[in-house]
């Protein structure tokens, strides 16, 4: 029994090694899975797909918890790799997905579970994460000595910083104004976040567009997070509609409401402008240049904008009474669910791979067949025909 146990341990060594490698190289942007699942769940809820919405909610609770545990394990086991990511131009901005994922889960709790207190707790946690991520990542990137070129350093994933900032505003509009005595102060605070997000978008998208048009652009450069070019303005639209909806009788908001509404439509129009561009670039990448679809956690960054576009259009339709746009919201949720399924299947394949590897590793090695081999050696059970060749 002990021998068998030790054999199993030895056999599972490659599996353990595989899991450790996965944990060490875990991308900080993995929380995009929780963001994507949460926003698709919210879109399903708003559009009446209640069963799927509930299913995705529970999946997101598991995913968020699992990702938090994995991140904690990475901090403990691979602290150097974790710290190095903060100063990486490619991976550092991925930490902002923790903020957005926390806020999306909070929004789910408000909408699906009517649990504003829990959501408020998550909002406070997200605010703390936002402060840490914003000032740690951008300071670390600024002060490092060896910096990559613009072409190598920037990608659509940087815009997750915008998504994180706007997500604070979106969840805050649901949980903050009713908890503070001075509603104007709360709305001023949230409007500042909305404007900060807009400012970051203008800075970053200028660099990204410059990189698109003036640097060599290989198919491998068009990573899935480029869809956040659209997703960041989609969440800015959502934040704008949330501010308008939360403004109530606030004198401050009454004076700036036309400005907020105008900018909200500007953001929605920009998000819409990006969609054909990103589709064409995707066709160029996968159909023309034959880059195969293989699972990458960064693909969650493609699902999130699809779900967010559906949600922001739904809110825009309701806030501005634009019923003729309703079909867009419905169409995009169908695409969003299908995209979610594809990426989820890709993730499951990863787990299946590990499972199959573990099952094969547990098969008894040659030593386990020793009695049979001995029987063959003695010649007792082996007929002579055939011989060895």
């Amino acid at each position, binding site marked *: 029994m002990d021998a068998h146990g030790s054999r199993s341990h030895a056999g599972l060594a490659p599996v353990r090694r595989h899991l450790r490698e996965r944990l060490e190289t875990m991308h900080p942007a993995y929380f995009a899975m929780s963001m994507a699942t949460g926003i698709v769940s919210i879109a399903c809820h708003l559009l*009446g797909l209640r069963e799927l919405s509930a299913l995705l909610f529970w999946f997101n609770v598991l995913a968020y918890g699992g990702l938090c545990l994995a991140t904690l394990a990475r901090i403990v086991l691979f602290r150097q790799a974790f710290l190095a990511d903060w100063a990486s131009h490619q991976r550092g901005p991925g930490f902002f997905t923790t903020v957005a994922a926390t806020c999306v889960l909070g929004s789910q709790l408000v909408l699906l579970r009517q649990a504003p207190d829990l959501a408020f707790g998550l909002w406070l946690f997200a605010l703390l994460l936002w402060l840490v991520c914003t000032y740690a990542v951008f300071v670390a990137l600024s002060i490092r000595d060896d910096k990559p070129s613009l072409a190598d350093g920037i990608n659509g994933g940087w815009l997750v910083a915008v998504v994180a900032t706007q997500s604070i505003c979106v969840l805050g509009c649901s949980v903050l104004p009713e908890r503070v005595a001075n509603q104007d102060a709360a709305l001023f605070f949230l409007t500042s976040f909305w404007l900060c997000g807009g400012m970051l978008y203008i800075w970053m998208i200028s660099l990204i567009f410059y990189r698109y048009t003036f640097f060599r652009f290989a198919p491998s450069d068009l990573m899935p997070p480029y869809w956040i070019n659209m997703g960041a303005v989609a969440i800015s639209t959502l934040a704008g509609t949330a501010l308008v909806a939360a403004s109530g009788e606030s004198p401050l908001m009454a004076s700036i409401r036309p400005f907020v509404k105008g900018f909200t439509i500007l953001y929605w129009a920009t998000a819409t402008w990006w969609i054909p561009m990103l589709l064409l670039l995707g066709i160029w990448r996968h159909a023309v240049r034959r880059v195969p679809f293989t699972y990458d956690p960064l693909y969650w960054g493609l699902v999130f904008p699809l779900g967010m576009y559906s949600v922001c259009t739904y809110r825009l339709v309701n806030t501005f009474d634009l019923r003729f746009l309703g079909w867009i919201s419905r169409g995009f949720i169908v695409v969003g669910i299908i995209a979610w399924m*594809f990426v989820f299947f890709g993730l499951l394949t990863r787990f299946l791979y590990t499972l199959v590897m573990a099952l094969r590793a547990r098969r*008894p090695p040659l030593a386990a067949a020793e009695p049979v081999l001995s029987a063959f050696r003695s010649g007792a059970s082996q007929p002579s025909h*055939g011989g060895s060749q």
Partner: protein
Amino acid sequence: MNANTFLFNRDESGRRGLAVAAHTARATRPSRTARAESMQKRGRGMIFAGFIITIAGVVLYCAVCFSGGIDADMGELLLENAVPFARATLGVLAVGALVWLVGSFTYLRGAMDADDEASNGGEATPPQVP
């Protein structure tokens, strides 16, 4: 007879802790390779079928639920009649996911068997634990 003339059969006998003689192994090697390829082919087919069924399930489910209109209250009202059908379409979705899952498992097993066969080459050597 030397132990090296024996081959550990990973697919069938390995699981039961048996070993077969080299001549038998040589006789079964092409069939095991063919079996691995067949598993991969079958797995690919199931993955494709799973995708198609899942997409059909999603589209049907959304079509049924959207029949209530974009207004949430009105949608909810109409959805009450559509719930059994909506759940049936969710069942289609689940079947698609299951077919895909089984297909992926089959494909992965086939791919790993094929890899092992390739790494073992023509020689009857004991298998390397992956």
